[in-house]
């Protein structure tokens, strides 16, 4: 998408004047790196005309110094050695532009996340590493070329995935702003989890009463197209210009349905109603709940007798006066052109049957908090009468067990699920409201009443006589005759054992990532944290943005949260998407391929590896043609070309080779040359830094957009220059941000392994790592693991590799 650039490697005439700024970042960097020494060292590097160190380069003051230097000292290249380019590259690029320097003439050395934070206790080695990182950046920046970014128009439409309260709110906000919204929901009705809950905390509003008007707004809003019973099956494209395919499953009931319920009365098939967690029944033709939107009924083809268009049973057809039932409906593929995507897929609940000590599934009167919601709900299976399942009697003594599946490292999740404490307090008050005589015991670890009005509710519950006992039961036993329950455990405040007899126990279950979130992750190339929830671009400053441009999160998809927080985040996501679309256009980074037609042999290898089919081969002209608008910028084509006829703008062969040469100038036999992809491995190394995971300081990371950019000659060059170990790191297979470009990484590394084996080299010296953006520890432990390989690599082995790969030293 860049302007066609000069095909010559470097412009001869212009004198290169590089300015280097080494940032202290307070004590974040200066605490373990001698920044003054690094700056002095930088001043000795070729083409560097000035090198400074300052407290905060990203501050206004720091940027002003940089800008005035660019103007006064006529700098034409700038290096900032500070934090990760994923954090502040855009800040500094903007400053360069303001001073009249093309932003592609700027480079960062990551001496915080990749250096000071991960080598906190080895100042000397960290300083040496920082020098190397600066040297690499200086070597690369000298070869950088100015580039112009192309502006692409944005499609002013949004796809919202998930029709829970978050998806509903985001859709309504965007639709009210004036953008077209497609809301896709996989269930027959929107409403999500909130529709199943009886009351909301802390105000005790009726949940469906406040949600139903919003659901109806969604249905009637002229800017919203509601696609229920539908799933997104494919997403292609890039920010502003996505193409999504949605599979709309047939309902077998047309819009003529008036929801009169005549059909369900005659339907002979009965099954548990999922909406009521199986506590009630439904028929094969059904509507999940009374307020469902759309109200059109659905036929569940897994249950209906009429399969494959054979009408075995026609009772519903006969009963329907409006003739709304049509068994010939087919699944439809809907293709959407959209500009932004909001992911609001929500969360699942923990299944407590994996905890044998609580007996859920065996003891009839042990229920989950979600089942409790349906029992206490006036629209639920018992019409709002709190009854226990064994004898349908009102329980006199009810126990709530907290943290079921949360905050545990055995049979559950490590995190706090955020909503269960307040949910239990709300539930206990609901019981007290209707049956004030009921004895209620809450067994807890900590009560977390952190939100507005939460503490008041907690106090109210205690005042109403709800007993809070610290210490979870170790076991729940059932009296076989009465089906009463015995809860046995330790009260940790009074240091005494309890044995409590209750009529019913409610397990306060936690929230889990959706079981299909892996599919969504792959579909949209998102990242997930170790918990399994989606990872935001920055935990503090971009909490609703995905790392992938044009995608945003709302609700429990990102982390467990209550209704208020989900709605807040949904409005935020809508605003973020709106900002993008209001501009109407988006700039695309100038990192597309550059071709050298005189070297091209028209072999067509590049066309085969391009994940976007952006390169076509003209057989008659014996030329390739690059469609820049379709290019995603992975650089796999450049790595594949055996003749050097293709390279990637801003990540050219010369630039990367210069970085390799800078690393291997001294002590190469002790160093690891690591190639990390921008989205996963590099971000994972950043994550290791943010979490201060310590690892040995002998690794030097070279950033590429995709691991698919790593050409075999880069690895060979590193070995030829005497590197001890080379690490190629990228996204997990299937998670690649460039569709499948990292498959080629694997092929190339395997070819290199074969070559090394044939030449009698230790193939362990070339390491391949798949690490996601959240797997900082995986990255750190890989570096630790590699140390044993470095120890056993002998000088003879290094020499041998130098000889084997000496061809790689030729030219560039």
């Amino acid at each position, binding site marked *: 998408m860049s302007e066609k650039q000069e095909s010559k490697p470097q412009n001869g005439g212009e004198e290169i004047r590089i300015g280097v700024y080494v940032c202290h970042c307070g004590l974040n960097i200066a605490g373990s790196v001698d920044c003054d020494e690094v700056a002095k060292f930088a001043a000795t590097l070729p083409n560097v005309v000035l090198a400074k160190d300052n407290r905060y380069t990203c501050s206004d003051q720091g940027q002003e110094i940089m800008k005035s230097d660019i103007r006064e000292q006529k700098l034409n290249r700038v290096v900032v050695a500070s934090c990760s380019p994923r954090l502040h590259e855009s800040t500094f690029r903007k400053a360069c532009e303001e001073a009249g320097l093309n932003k592609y003439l700027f480079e960062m050395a990551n001496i915080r996340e990749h250096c000071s934070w991960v080598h906190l206790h080895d100042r000397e080695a960290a300083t040496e590493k920082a020098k190397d990182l600066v040297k690499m950046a200086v070597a690369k920046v000298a070869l950088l070329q100015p580039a112009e970014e192309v502006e692409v128009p944005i499609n002013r439409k949004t796809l919202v995935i998930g029709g829970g309260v978050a998806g509903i709110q985001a859709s309504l906000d965007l639709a009210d702003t004036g953008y077209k919204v497609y809301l896709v929901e996989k*269930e027959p009705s929107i409403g999500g989890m909130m529709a199943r809950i009886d009351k909301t905390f802390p105000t005790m509003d009726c949940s469906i009463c406040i949600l139903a008007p919003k659901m109806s707004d969604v249905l009637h809003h002229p800017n919203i197209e509601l696609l229920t019973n539908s799933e997104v099956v494919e997403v292609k494209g890039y920010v502003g210009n996505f193409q999504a395919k949605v599979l709309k499953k047939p309902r077998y009931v047309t819009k003529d349905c008036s929801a009169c319920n005549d059909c369900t*009365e005659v339907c*002979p*098939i*009965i099954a*548990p*109603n*999922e*909406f009521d*967690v*199986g*506590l*009630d*029944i439904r028929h094969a033709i059904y509507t999940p709940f009374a307020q469902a939107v759309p109200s059109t009924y659905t036929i569940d083809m897994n249950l209906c*007798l009429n399969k494959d268009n054979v009408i*075995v*049973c*026609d*009772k519903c057809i006969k009963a329907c006066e409006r003739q709304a039932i049509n068994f010939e409906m087919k699944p439809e593929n809907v293709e959407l052109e959209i500009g932004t995507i909001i992911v609001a897929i929500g969360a*699942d*609940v923990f*299944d407590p*049957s994996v905890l044998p000590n609580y007996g*859920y*599934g065996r003891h*009839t009167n042990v*229920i989950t908090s*979600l*089942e409790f919601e349906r029992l206490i709900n006036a629209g639920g*299976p*018992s*019409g709002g*009468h709190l*009854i226990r*399942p064994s004898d*349908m009697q009102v329980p006199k003594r009810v126990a709530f067990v907290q943290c079921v599946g949360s905050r545990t490292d055995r049979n559950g999740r490590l995190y706090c699920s955020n909503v269960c404490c307040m949910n239990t307090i709300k539930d206990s008050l609901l019981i007290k409201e209707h049956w004030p005589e009921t004895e209620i015991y809450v067994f807890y670890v900590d009560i977390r009443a952190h939100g507005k009005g939460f503490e008041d509710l907690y106090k109210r519950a205690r005042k109403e006589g709800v007993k809070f006992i610290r210490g979870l039961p170790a076991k729940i036993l059932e009296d076989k005759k009465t089906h009463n329950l015995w809860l046995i455990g330790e009260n940790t405040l009074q240091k005494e054992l309890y044995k409590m007899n209750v009529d019913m126990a409610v397990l306060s279950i936690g929230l889990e990532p*959706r*079981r299909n979130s892996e599919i969504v992750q792959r579909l949209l190339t998102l990242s997930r944290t170790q918990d399994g929830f989606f990872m935001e671009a920055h935990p503090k400053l971009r909490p609703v943005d995905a790392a992938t441009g044009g995608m945003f999160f709302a609700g429990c998809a990102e982390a467990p949260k209550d209704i208020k927080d989900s709605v807040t985040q949904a409005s935020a996501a809508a605003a973020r998407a709106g900002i993008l679309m209001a501009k109407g256009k988006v700039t695309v980074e100038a990192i597309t391929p550059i071709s050298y037609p005189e070297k091209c042999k028209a072999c067509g290898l590049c066309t085969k590896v391009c994940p976007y089919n952006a390169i076509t081969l003209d057989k008659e002209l014996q030329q390739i043609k690059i469609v820049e608008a379709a290019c995603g910028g992975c650089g796999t084509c450049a790595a594949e070309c055996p003749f050097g006829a293709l390279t990637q703008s801003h990540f050219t062969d010369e630039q990367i080779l210069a970085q390799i040469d800078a690393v291997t100038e001294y002590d190469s036999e002790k160093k690891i040359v690591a190639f990390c992809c921008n989205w996963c491995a590099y971000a994972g190394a950043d994550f290791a830094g943010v979490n201060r995971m310590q690892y040995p300081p002998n690794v030097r990371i070279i950033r590429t957009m995709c691991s698919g950019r790593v050409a075999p000659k880069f690895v060979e060059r590193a070995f030829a220059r005497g590197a001890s170990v080379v690490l190629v790191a990228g996204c997990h297979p299937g998670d690649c941000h460039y569709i499948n470009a990292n498959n080629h990484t694997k092929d190339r590394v395997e070819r290199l392994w074969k070559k090394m084996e044939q030449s009698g080299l230790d193939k362990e010296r070339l390491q391949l790592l798949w690490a996601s953006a959240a797997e900082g520890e995986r990255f750190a432990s890989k570096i630790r693991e590699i140390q044993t390989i470095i120890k056993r690599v002998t000088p003879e082995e290094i020499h041998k590799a130098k000889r084997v790969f000496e061809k790689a030293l030729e030219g560039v």
Partner: protein
Amino acid sequence: MPERIRHAPLGNKKVKQPNAEVHIITDQCKGCGFCIKFCPKKVLEESQEINARGVHPPKILDESKCIICSFCTAVCPDFAIFVVEKPCKEERHIKHD
């Protein structure tokens, strides 16, 4: 909805139970087995008896499972099977109050 269902339905809802009476005219049957094969609720099976036409006619396995879809009548080439609804017993009604 992905939660696993662990509790049986409470059974509070009124459900009209089909009350079927399946009639097989055994001597008219030629033993093609269509009714057995196509019954969606597997109400019928082949009997051991031999009818006037020298074949095994179907017999009823569990009449209470029949939902009176009458698909057996529709597929029978010999008009040898039909279902009627018995005068209604009581509705299944276990509502607690």
